[in-house]
């Protein structure tokens, strides 16, 4: 995980390891849990969150189509999660100044991945287990094991941002 801090905006990597899906409603719940001192469904320290709500899993497959959703909807919740130790996020599109500052402050990293390519991305998911908020349907938290998942560093730990590059 330490290596994530040394990545630079614009770099492409292929990530293998564990990531957790969480999107709008899951973020709202996690932040409410932190504020009321309740336990979170997974250890935030060092974790990577993937802004994703997959389709239902077809029979015989590990997961269905599973591309990224628009990250900026999670912006209001993100600084608190970073303060609590969240290491990385995967999504699509830009982030607010507050998120960018928080990424820099807490030495996190924000990745983007191929947007609108959910079928293709399912190839890199080797395991999927729903671990919390099952009642949210596609917005439940799923623990994913991924292999060579393609990521592009969009905001790095020094605040470097890919959208400024050109």
């Amino acid at each position, binding site marked *: 995980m330490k290596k994530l801090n040394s990545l630079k905006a614009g770099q492409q990597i292929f990530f293998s390891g564990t990531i957790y899906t969480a999107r709008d409603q899951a973020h709202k719940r996690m932040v409410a849990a932190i504020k009321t001192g309740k336990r979170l469904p997974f250890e935030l320290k060092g974790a990577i969150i993937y802004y994703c709500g997959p389709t239902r899993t077809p029979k015989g497959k590990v997961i269905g189509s599973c591309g990224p959703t628009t990250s900026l909807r999670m912006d209001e919740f993100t600084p608190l999660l970073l303060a609590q130790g969240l290491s990385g996020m995967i999504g699509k599109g830009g982030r607010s100044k507050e998120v960018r500052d928080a990424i820099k402050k807490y030495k996190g990293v924000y990745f983007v991945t191929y947007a609108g*390519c959910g079928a*293709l991305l399912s190839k890199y998911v080797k395991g999927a287990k729903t671990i919390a908020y099952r009642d*949210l349907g596609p*917005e439940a938290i799923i623990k994913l094991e991924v292999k060579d998942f393609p990521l592009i560093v969009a905001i790095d730990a020094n605040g470097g941002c890919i959208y400024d590059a050109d």
Partner: protein
Amino acid sequence: MREIKASRITQAVTELVRQANFILRQDVLSALRGAYKFEKNQRAKTILKAILDNAAYARKKNLAICQDTGMPVVFVEAGQDVKISGDLKAAINKGIEEGYKKYFLRNSIVSDPLLRGKPKFSPCVIHTDIVRGNKIKLTVMPKGFGCENKSQLKMFKPTAATEEIKKFIVEAVKSAGPDACPPYIVGVGIGGTADYASILAKKALLIKIQAENSKLEEDLLKKINKTGIGPMGLGGRCTALAVKIQKYPTHIAGLPVSVNISCHALRSASIIL
């Protein structure tokens, strides 16, 4: 009167759900291939290659092109000489539900927009036109909300210059920026009322991309592609694949303009019964 059974409608909608979600529209595919050639930037090319690979993989493996299988929008063009035996709206929604369940698509619809709750498969949004004839045309468009969220409506003054309108449309695309899966297809509705302009903007997305463009459409496409937003917003020559405009007469006091952006995964499928 020609009679069509509601059950036939349900069956047709279920099949359209499969086609729209698994098989990318041929015109969109060709436009994406064209964009791949048009791009010089290596990263933009890599992204467009991934988008094309995704469409091929989705089709081959019966997977949704995008996990956001949308709020399904169904366009009905009902011939006035057709009699539907049964409940048309219920038949359409049943077809949507059966299709989304059968093909493992996503349940993205919350019953109450304020209370939210557990997402379901339906209802869809239905737009109905009564036309001449004894046939019925059904179109299913799964509209993802990453791009739907970037929709804009502006009521211009009737004296507004075309330049102002162009600026509004280009700004709408700029404000979507990298967020809504570019390269976009930009649907524009001009005229009618506020609600009607928005329906026209969505209907514009059903026009074949290669259909001949007006000067205004060409000009807007050039301006949008000059923004340099590019595929995934990471820079490039191709920010939009097309701009499509639908117009309608309007009131002397107004000039409604609505912009409905689609991501590159512009999905729809139609059948005539």
